[in-house]
């Protein structure tokens, strides 16, 4: 496939970015408005907890889809959405943790610490969240410049965060032996991570083979 280029700062690109931004923010509006207008069902806190968790995973999948997309379509502009979607992943994770911290635990420190220690699915989820903080903190241009090569190394943490997030969801669902939704996310992330391994392996193979 032939690589095409677009005017990087053009109006087309700006409106496309704005559209992605609005779409990514829409679930957050629903998250706040549904409980306010009594549309979130019998258990609004459960609704907000689950919805914010779901959208964290969706954003994570979308973020990780961009570099394989660049490779598969040959269109490099995909990657320019990565920071925004990555930060949206963090944004929904913050809402998810905040719901637990505030609406579920009411900042009861003892209860929270007990939850983190006693319950493996919360332990794993919390670790995944903590690992996301340095990634969000180093997402600025200045930090990218300052960290140089180490920036890339640091951001490989996402390959640890993604499986932890899946494990968190899987353990949460294990009580009902209901793995239908978890396995969808696991499969998508599996493909996205698998593609990276495949691409790397191919690159290495082609680097070692004699050129024709």
């Amino acid at each position, binding site marked *: 496939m032939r690589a095409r280029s677009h005017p990087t700062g053009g109006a087309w690109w700006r409106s496309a970015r704005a559209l992605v931004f609005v779409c990514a923010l829409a679930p957050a509006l629903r998250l706040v408005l549904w409980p306010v207008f009594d549309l*979130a069902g*019998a258990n*609004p806190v459960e609704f907000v907890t689950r919805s914010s968790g779901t959208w964290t995973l969706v954003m994570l999948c979308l973020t990780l889809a961009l570099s394989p997309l660049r490779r598969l379509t040959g269109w490099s502009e995909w990657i320019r959405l990565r920071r925004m979607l990555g930060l949206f992943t963090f944004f929904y994770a913050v809402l998810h943790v905040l719901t637990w911290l505030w*609406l579920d635990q009411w900042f009861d420190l003892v209860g929270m610490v007990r939850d983190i220690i*006693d319950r493996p699915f919360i332990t794993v989820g919390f670790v995944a969240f903590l690992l996301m903080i340095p990634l969000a903190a180093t997402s600025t241009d200045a930090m990218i410049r300052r960290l140089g090569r180490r920036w890339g190394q640091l951001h490989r943490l996402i390959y640890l965060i993604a499986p932890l997030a899946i494990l968190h969801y899987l353990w949460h669902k294990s*009580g009902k*032996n209901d793995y239908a939704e978890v396995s969808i996310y696991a499969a998508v992330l599996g493909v996205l991570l698998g593609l990276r391994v495949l691409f790397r392996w191919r690159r290495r193979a082609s680097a070692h083979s004699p050129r024709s």
Partner: protein
Amino acid sequence: MLIRISDTTEPNGSEITSERAYFNRRRWLASTVAGLAGSATSASVLGAAPGAPDAKSVAAAPARKILQGDDPKAQRLAATPSELSTIERPTSYKWVTTYNNFYEFGTDKDDPPRHAHRLRVRPWTIEVEGAVARSRTFDIEELLRMAPLEERIYRMRCVEGWSMVIPWIGFPLSELIRRAEPTGSAKYLEFITLADPKQMPGLRSPVIEWPYTEGLRMDEAMHPLTLLTLGLYGQVLPNQNGAPVRLVVPWKYGFKSSKSLVKIRFLDKQPVTSWMKSSPTEYGFYSNVNPGVDHPRWSQASERRIGEDGFMARKRPTLMFNGYGAQVASLYSGMDLTRFI
């Protein structure tokens, strides 16, 4: 046979409700009587009511109307209010009938209300077998006439950490047990829920082993609070709530209250329930509501009352035996309830 019923069948009022609320209700009953009887008698009734609430004065008071749902098509069920009811505010009919765990119709809360219309509730029978004088079958119409129907407003605490207050209609399970004539070796009861893939789409998923089975010890089953339930909110049970006949055991987590019963087995040994097979570390045979024993994946110390503890409200503390300790604690005397979960 080991049938032990609490010595005090009369509930301890202060245990169920606050004393103030209790007397407020007495006063309300009394003032209703007064209103009907005229002002001449009101002084004496009011004077007597708060100090000495005895059975006679309650019997003399006009029966409180039983609570009605807001589905005009529902088939009504007559009942009389029970003294075993809590006076806590009942959860709205809407939430009681739309936020349901009934895995035979799917594991999401809104699956049962969406799919339970496929359940055929007539004809319906409950088979009784095992350690009984003779195996027999009770027809649903027979059950509806078996004993006087009472409205029992009970707290319902789900193991997932939420609770409701539901006006059930039914009669003590002991009425059925007596008619089943259990033999001396009957120590436990096993309850079996319908499992028909044609009516129940949830059976396709291997969440737990179907049919859904639950169990009680004989003394638990004979306890006056244990209700064989045929209705709620003044009507026959909606399908998603376990129509046409289910169990309600208010001091245990909700899953112990089996729905859509088709069989009751009397056994000499403790049965292994569906949940015990599925997650033995998470769900024990007793599963009494106990704020001191956490579920492996969440704390049981507090609960969210559906419809009341809304978006910006703290959870309320969970009570031992769901607040029915005065009536049922004696069933478990000498047992370590952190071990017998």
